[in-house]
């Protein structure tokens, strides 16, 4: 007797849920796991990276416009001469010569009468030099020593002299968060619209799906542009606009699923128990839709990122000084022949992320829907 009670109390053999199965299948998919890791790495890089990047994404270095990417520090030796000549010209003094001494430069300047020691400010203002000090000053000439200001531009700089590395990372924040948030918005609208249409059925379903059909036949680009025109070039409303366009597929998929769920016994049972229809929808239908919704969402995120980049590419999306990968690619495409790194770096970030998202989406589909395999 006691034994039986003990046996009953001992934990049952752990069953494997649908999600447990899916997880084990997903972790067996090497491409999907590697892509997932890459995405996490990319997200961490974009969120934390700008804090450690050598330059701020907003800072403009006028002396460093369109410098090519380099792993060694700027200024390069051949840049120093022109920059010092430029400083002398700005200070309206004659340059008598300069020599490099370790990480400092000695600059000899001459002019008419006493030279104001505040010429050091002209030197400090250059992006190449800092900490300028007057060494000796005689009437008509002055010797100034300045420290070389070493800067790193691993991805080079853009046409206004901003660091491409930190701009690419900050742009990644925008692109990724728009992808995620607008994806969620699209999924939320689509799920509730589709589930409602499929669950109520009949006339309501036909009218609701007819609306989806009409929205489908509108030229996509026209639809997006109209939304942007309505909402203005507001950063937050971009999410809504993008999300509001991409819910149509989701609505169709969810409606189809709901139609087949509705006829199943457990829904009939719930109806027989007298549970209210909104409650059946929320508690029984929507949770059962989760599988296809998750799959579709992972495939939707890259679409949203592409759409956002496309809008930004056309100039409707994110505005300066913020940027997204689309903005950077657009700028890169414009300055391409002379500065191809402006296209290549943002494009490779975007493409690798999209690839990884696709692999994760395919992996999830295989994991959650083994029939499809």
């Amino acid at each position, binding site marked *: 007797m006691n034994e039986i009670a003990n046996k009953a109390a001992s934990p049952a053999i752990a069953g494997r849920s649908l999600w447990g199965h899916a997880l084990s299948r997903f972790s067996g998919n090497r491409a999907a796991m590697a892509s997932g890791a890459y995405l996490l790495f990319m997200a961490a890089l974009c969120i934390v990276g700008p804090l450690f990047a050598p330059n701020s994404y907003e800072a403009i270095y006028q002396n460093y416009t369109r410098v090519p990417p380099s792993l060694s520090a700027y200024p390069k030796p051949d840049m120093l001469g022109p920059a010092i000549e430029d400083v002398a010209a700005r200070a309206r003094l004659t340059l008598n010569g300069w020599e490099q001494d370790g990480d400092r430069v000695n600059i000899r300047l001459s002019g008419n009468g006493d030279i104001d020691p505040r010429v050091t400010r002209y030197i400090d203002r250059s992006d190449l030099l800092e900490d300028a000090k007057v060494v000796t000053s005689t009437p008509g000439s002055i010797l100034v020593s300045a420290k070389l200001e070493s800067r790193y531009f691993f991805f080079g700089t853009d046409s206004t002299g901003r660091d491409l590395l930190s701009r690419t990372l900050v742009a990644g924040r925008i692109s990724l968060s728009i992808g995620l948030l607008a994806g969620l918005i699209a999924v939320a609208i689509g799920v509730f619209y589709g589930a409602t249409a499929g669950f109520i059925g009949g006339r309501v379903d036909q009218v609701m799906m007819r609306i989806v*059909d*009409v929205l489908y*036949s*509108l*030229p*996509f*680009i*026209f639809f997006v*542009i*109209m939304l942007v*025109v*309505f909402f203005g070039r507001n950063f937050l409303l971009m999410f809504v606009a993008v999300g509001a366009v991409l819910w149509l597929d989701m609505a169709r998929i969810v409606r189809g699923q709901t139609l087949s769920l509705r006829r199943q016994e457990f829904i009939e049972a719930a109806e027989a128990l007298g549970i209210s229809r909104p409650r059946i929808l929320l508690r029984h239908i929507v949770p059962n839709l989760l599988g296809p919704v998750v799959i579709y969402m992972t495939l939707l995120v*890259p679409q949203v990122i*592409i759409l956002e*980049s*496309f809008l930004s*590419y*056309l100039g409707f999306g994110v505005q300066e000084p913020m940027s997204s990968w*689309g903005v950077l*690619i*657009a700028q*890169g*495409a414009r300055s*391409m*022949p002379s500065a*191809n790194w402006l*296209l290549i770096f943002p*494009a490779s970030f*975007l*493409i690798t992320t*999209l*690839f990884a998202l*696709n692999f994760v989406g395919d992996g999830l589909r295989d994991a959650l829907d083994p029939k499809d395999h």
Partner: protein
Amino acid sequence: MIRYVLRRLLTAIPTIFAIITLSFFMMRVAPGGPFNQERGLDPVIRANLERTYHLDLPLWQQYLIYLGNLLRGDLGPSFTMPEFTVAELFRAGLPVSIQLGGLALALALVLGGALGIIAALRQNRAPDVAVIAVATAGSTIPTFVIAPLFQLFFALTLKWLPVGGWGDGALVNKIGPVVTLMLPQLAIVARLMRGAMIEALHAHHIRTAHAMGLSDFSIVLRHALRSALLPVVSYAGPAAAALLTGSVVVETIFSIPGIGRYFVDAALNRDYTVVMGGVVVVAVFTIVFNLIVDILYAVIDPRVRYE
């Protein structure tokens, strides 16, 4: 069959009507107007302009006027390019867009279809992996990345092709836009064809054909291809409508005088008639190609009958 086509065309009318109505009012509710952008436009001149284009009338009257003109085939004048009517703009641009889109679609169907069949016949082996890699790349990399990279390599580095321009339809000018338009479509067609072909090759009638000793060539091309074509055909309909009506990105990057670029410019400048014209053109193309898809379905699949 003819009755079916006629009925489909008749049921398309309310859809087109709904699309026109929706986009007309969406366009008009948006703030701004075609003559608001120009600063310093004299109020009297503006009032005159608005009267000429009936913009001073109540919205519902403008809507009725527009519908009336549309029924007579008049798409109206362009507001921002007063020297052209919308019909003239489209008559000049549409053939260009159709040529590029049509070439791109044809190539995508032929090449993508061939790649998909090859992948399906060599499933999980090297050719299959290669095709999947190409298809993933093609459907992942956005057009606005492919196009400038294409220019960078073939026009600026190798100098084989012109950077852009139409060049009165010279073949070298078409290569860049066509390839850029084609690649994403080719990728999707190859994927669809591969999946459908794998499934088709497992069907019972194919096993029977093997048992009857038919050659592999005729099994694949005459029997399996027929059922494998269905998903490709149903994808090709909407794709054709989208491709033939021009692409904003490709036309902008390669400086092509098609109609794709009108959409964005016209919507931003509130050039109402041009936007509406574009909407009508796209809607008509979508409906016509969906109809063609359904007819092709009946041709390919003898089980489908339209009575």
